[in-house]
C-alpha cells in the first residue's frame, strides 16, 4: 500500500458500515435446512476406479465370447478312426499318381 492510499484505506476501515447481527432464528433455520439435505459423503470416489469398471467388463466379456466361439481346445475324435485312415490312404494314392502324370508331361 502506498502512502497515498493509506488515508483512503483508513477512512474505509473506520467508516465502512458493519453488517447487522444475524437474527437469532437463522442458526436454527440453517441447521434445519442442513438436516433436510443429504449427509455429505465421507470421501469422493476416484474417477479412475469407475472408469476401470466398464473397461474390465468389456475385457472379460470379450474373453468369454472368444472362448465360446473360437477358443475351443482341440479334442481327438472319439470314433471313425478307420474311416479317416482309409480316406487318408486314398488321398495319398491319388496325389502320388497325379504327380507322376504331371511329371510325364
Amino acid at each position, binding site marked *: 500500500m502506498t502512502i497515498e492510499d493509506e488515508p483512503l*484505506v483508513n477512512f*474505509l476501515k473506520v*467508516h*465502512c*458500515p458493519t453488517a*447487522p447481527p444475524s*437474527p437469532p432464528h437463522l442458526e436454527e433455520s440453517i441447521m434445519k*435446512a442442513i438436516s433436510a439435505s443429504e*449427509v455429505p459423503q465421507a470421501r469422493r470416489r476416484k474417477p479412475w476406479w469407475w472408469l476401470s469398471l466398464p473397461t474390465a467388463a468389456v475385457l472379460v466379456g470379450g474373453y468369454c465370447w472368444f472362448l465360446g466361439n473360437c477358443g475351443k481346445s482341440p479334442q481327438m475324435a472319439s470314433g471313425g478312426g478307420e474311416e479317416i485312415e482309409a480316406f487318408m490312404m486314398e488321398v495319398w494314392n491319388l496325389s502320388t499318381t497325379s504327380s507322376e502324370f504331371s511329371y510325364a508331361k
Partner: protein
Amino acid sequence: MNVLTDAVFETDCIQLVRKCQQGDKQSFRLLYQRYHQQVRSILYRLCGSEFLDDLQQEVFLRVWKSIHQLRNPQYFSTWLYRICWNVACDENIRRQKQRHQVENREKELDNPLLLLHYEELVAKGLQQLSLEHRAVIILHDLEDLPQKEIAQILSIPVGTVKSRLFKARKKLREFLEKEGITL
C-alpha cells in the same frame, strides 16, 4: 502468543472440518458459530442488506453440501471466502435480471436524506464499484487478506488483483472527492 493461539485455532478448525466431512452436524454448528459473522460481513459489503439472511443460509448450505470435496481442511477459510464470492456473483446475476429492483435501489441511494453519514457514503461508494472491484477492496483493504490468497479466492492472477485494487481505489477516491471528502 498470538501465533500460538492462531495455531490452536487452526488445528481446532481442521478437526471440525474433518468431522463435518464425516457428517457430524454438531461440528458444523460450531463451524457456523465461528465463521457466520465473517461470512455475513462480507456478504453485506458485497451485496448489501437485501436478502442477507438468505445469502448467508445459501453459503452455509453450499458449505455443508460440498465440504466432503475439500481435500485440504487447512484451506477452509479460503474455500469459504470463495463460496461467499460465488454466492455474491450468483446474486449479482439474479439482480441484473431483475433490473427494476436495481433501479429502485439506485433511487433510494440517490436520496440525499439517506446520505447523512460517512458510513452511508462508503456504502454508496462501494455499491457504485463493479462487483469485481468491490471484492478486492473488501478482501484486501477491509478484511486484510494477502493478495495471493485473494487471487486464489477469485481465481485470478496476483497481477490482476493489484490492477483491480489500483482502479477500485482510484474510483472510490474520485467518488469521495465528488462528495466533498478529500483524502
